[in-house]
């Protein structure tokens, strides 16, 4: 594994996974919002596929992240962080993890229900668990959308919290996730 940063920082693996996921999520979200209203065109077909591939990648990274986490305890919160804030941070992170799984899974199931298999990168077919069904497809699409709205709100709060830690609490939370070497 990576060299531990003291004992209290995130490993480089964790940092790379966090920002890799963040970048893909933001791209996938923007693409999801944009592609739906396009007129049918080759571009639309491409964007839908890219969206799905991004989502499948996010899912794979989420699996890797949880596996990483099982063997690497996250660094402790700063001592002066009040317990309600710790609880809130834990809950928000748990929710984020849950959504990193739920959104791609629901997206994939919805795609199956629409009758479109997901073929990762156009090469690796992911089996369809659900048969084609219009009602199911509409329902799953709605859930996919609502979960995305939830994700959006939580990520905003998450970013807000990071900014608050950095500028108001003046602690190392943001710096240690940016790879700035952790607490001195």
């Amino acid at each position, binding site marked *: 594994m990576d060299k531990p940063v003291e004992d209290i920082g995130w490993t480089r693996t964790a940092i790379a996974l966090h920002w890799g996921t963040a970048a893909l999520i933001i791209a996938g979200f923007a693409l999801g919002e944009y592609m739906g209203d396009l007129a*049918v*065109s*080759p*571009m639309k*077909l*491409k964007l*839908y*596929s890219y969206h799905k591939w991004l989502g499948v990648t996010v899912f794979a990274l989420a699996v890797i992240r949880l596996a990483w986490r099982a063997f690497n305890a996250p660094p402790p919160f700063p001592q002066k962080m009040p317990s309600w804030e710790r609880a809130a941070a834990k809950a928000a992170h748990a929710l984020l993890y849950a959504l990193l799984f739920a959104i791609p899974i629901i997206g994939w199931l919805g795609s199956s229900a*629409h*009758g*479109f*298999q*997901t*073929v990762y*990168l*156009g*090469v690796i077919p992911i089996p369809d668990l659900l048969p084609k069904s219009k009602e199911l497809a509409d329902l799953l699409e709605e859930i996919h959308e609502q979960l995305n709205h939830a994700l959006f709100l939580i990520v905003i709060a998450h970013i807000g919290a990071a900014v608050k830690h950095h500028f108001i609490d003046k602690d190392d939370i943001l710096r240690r996730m940016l790879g700035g070497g952790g607490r001195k």
Partner: protein
Amino acid sequence: MKRLAALFLTMLIFIPGALYSAPVERDKSSISFLTRQMGVPVSGSFKRFDADVSHDPKDAGKSRASITIYMDEVDAGSDDGTVEIKRKPWFDVKNHPKAEFVSSSIKELGPGRYEVAGKMTIKGRTREVLAPVAVKKDGGLWLFEGGFTINRLDFSIGEGPWADTGTVDDKVEVRFRLLAPVEEKNNKRRLK
């Protein structure tokens, strides 16, 4: 009106050759197709078609088939796809409401296996196609099953930006499953 219909019927009966080919059982028959879009297999089907098939197991050369497909009742596998595929760059259903297949020769490959050559016309373009067909009796019906692959661009299906085969593959697999009544008498009469 009734008299006209009766006249029409008698005409049919007395014009040799007009009657003996048996129209297929529409509810049981199907014509479907499979495309690949960004590597994803997407299937669709033609909901309305007429097909006349006459089959003579003793003399395959006498068998023949003709199929007319009403393009407006296509199902492309999704709501968006079904709207899109009828438009001008694809099937251009308004100007080309029908697609047609007419067999030109039938060769026996083995017991119950044939190779049908024929002309396929879609969107006003005609191309030769060659389809292996398996034939067997299914209840009181002949079951004809087979398929062939066309290149959609040969028929100008998907023009302009859609001609990009990186998005929608050029190859389209067409599969058919036709059930037609076994009409021994007709077959005999025709042999004379």
